[in-house]
């Protein structure tokens, strides 16, 4: 190789590294700002200008009553909708993977529809549907139903991907060894697809906590965490927004790391049970 092309190769490598660094900076800068401003002492109603480092916000994370209430509402909705959508979505994924039934192809296709449909369309059509009945009022229930609707597709798609390389003869082997269908599912199928189910549950939880547009249409007078921040941002952004956002971030990253470690340990060789 000539000296010229060696320099070119080195320059190319540097350019690539720089590009990667810029890409990462672009992705993480907003997050860094949020974390940093959770330690800021704001001057007025808006925590947007750096004044002075303080731990005061972290000592009183729940000082903003309305924000705390909204977070609590969001957590309850996320917990319930995640539970329901994970169970139902997993069942859909298993049915689609294991059986060929009339309409299974259509279901496979329609599954992606809620994911690809613009949220504004889903949100407004759901609102129209809820308006047309007198059984349930807008509030926690309608928000939860709406969240389950889009979570369901995500869960089913993720678990189905996990099941794609699942060896169904393992189920036959379990039955052959005397395990009825339910026991087969609990002792063989479920443990093997659990990582996929947990990943799906984490994602749907995050989607629920995070959702604004669909929730906005179907909330009635109920205020979730994103709705509260949006509503309040016109008059004030208290530093607690940054504190709670950082907590949510830490919890998600923590879960992700824990999941990765668990998965790694599970695959470690020669583990004695």
């Amino acid at each position, binding site marked *: 190789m000539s000296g010229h092309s060696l320099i070119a190769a080195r320059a190319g490598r540097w350019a690539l590294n720089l590009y990667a660094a810029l890409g990462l900076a672009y992705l993480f800068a907003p997050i860094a700002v949020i974390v940093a401003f959770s330690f800021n002492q704001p001057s007025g109603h808006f925590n947007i200008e750096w004044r002075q480092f303080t731990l005061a916000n972290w000592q009183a994370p729940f000082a903003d009553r309305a924000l705390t209430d909204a977070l609590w509402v969001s957590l309850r909705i996320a917990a319930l909708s995640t539970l329901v959508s994970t169970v139902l979505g997993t069942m859909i994924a298993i049915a689609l993977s294991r059986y060929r039934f009339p309409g299974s192809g259509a279901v496979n296709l329609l599954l992606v529809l809620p994911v690809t449909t613009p949220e504004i369309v889903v949100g407004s059509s759901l609102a129209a549907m809820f308006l047309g009945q007198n059984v349930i009022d807008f509030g926690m229930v309608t928000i939860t139903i709406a969240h389950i609707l889009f979570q369901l597709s995500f869960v089913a798609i993720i678990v189905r991907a996990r099941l794609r390389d699942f*060896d169904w*003869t*393992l189920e*036959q*082997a*379990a*039955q*052959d*060894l*005397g*395990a*009825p269908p339910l*026991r*087969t599912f609990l*002792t*063989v199928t479920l*443990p*093997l697809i659990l990582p996929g189910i947990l990943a799906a549950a984490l994602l749907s939880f995050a989607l629920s906590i995070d959702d604004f547009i669909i929730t906005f249409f179907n909330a009635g007078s109920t205020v979730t965490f994103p709705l509260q921040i949006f509503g309040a941002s016109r008059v004030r952004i208290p530093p607690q927004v940054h504190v709670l956002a950082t907590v949510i971030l830490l919890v998600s990253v923590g879960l992700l790391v824990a999941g990765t470690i668990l998965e790694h340990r*599970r695959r470690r*060789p*020669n*583990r*004695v*049970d």
Partner: protein
Amino acid sequence: MVAVREAHLSIGGGEFFALLGPSGCGKTTLLKMIAGFERPSRGRVLLDGVDVSDVPPWKRNVNTVFQQYALFPHLSVADNVAFGPRSRKLPAAEIDQRVSDALDIVRMGELAARRPSHLSGGQQQRVALARALVNLPRALLLDEPMAALDLKLREAMQLELKRIQRDVGITFLLVTHDQGEALTMADRIAVMNHGVVEQVGTPEQIYQRPASLFVAGFIGSANLLPGTVVDRDGEDAVVQLCAGARVRAAGGSHVGVTEPCTVMLRPERLRAVADPPADGRCVAATITQVVFQGASSRLEAVLADGASVVTQIESHHRPAFLQPGQPVWIAWEPGAAFLLAGWPAIAGTSGDVGRVEAPR
């Protein structure tokens, strides 16, 4: 689609029985019916005289060694083996005892704590075997158990499997497409083709007295010479071969005079000689090829009707006249010629299934 059309089998207790046939012949479907994963649309499956056709697999006292073993990847070797006894809710002490006994039988006791993914193919097979044997089934079903092993290991495991079967005394039902495997291990063999059991018998019966052209071609290699029955002489039939000679053949009592037939000659029972023997058990041929194969050489010759014949000759006693292009007499000892009904799709030698089809 019909996978199994006709199969009447009765397998004795403690027997090593093989279902042999080419892929797609229905042998695996038959095995699944016995295991309980397929339901026969007609007919019954009896286990110890009890009709189990409608009993689900988890309630049948038979166990399967799957083709790819289907070991549970999230469980250790010991937990894999303990799966059956735990499903049947046996007391913990008995489970431990049985698991360690089963692992001892297959000589895998030392690797009890390992995960299946950290075992070799042969070790995985032993675990699959222990996992089935630990339940003391009435019958153990083996679905192409050697298919995932390399050739050398396969031969060792065949003998090992035979030893284990003798030790535990459990009925083994082996499904295989490998005739050598079936001949080596089985006490009795059922040969299947197109969903039909064509013959059931000991390895020797099936090899020496095949019931059909298909069986003759599928087991070992056979020279199949087409002809017509012209007369019957006691047990023997007199056959006018298409190649010209008139010969006597045993068997085939169901083939009537004037009907088309085939004379089967196993290569190892043929001799290549310069002059026709006095008893007339011979055909004239022209040598096409002599291939050195070590201790023996493979001699190929062609008959007057174009059918090719193969035999083995000793390499160090090769007479001078055995040269390509030379005329030769292919002769055989009394009892070597065996009569089969119908004509082969391709006359002459057949060692592989692709070239022989059973007459319809």
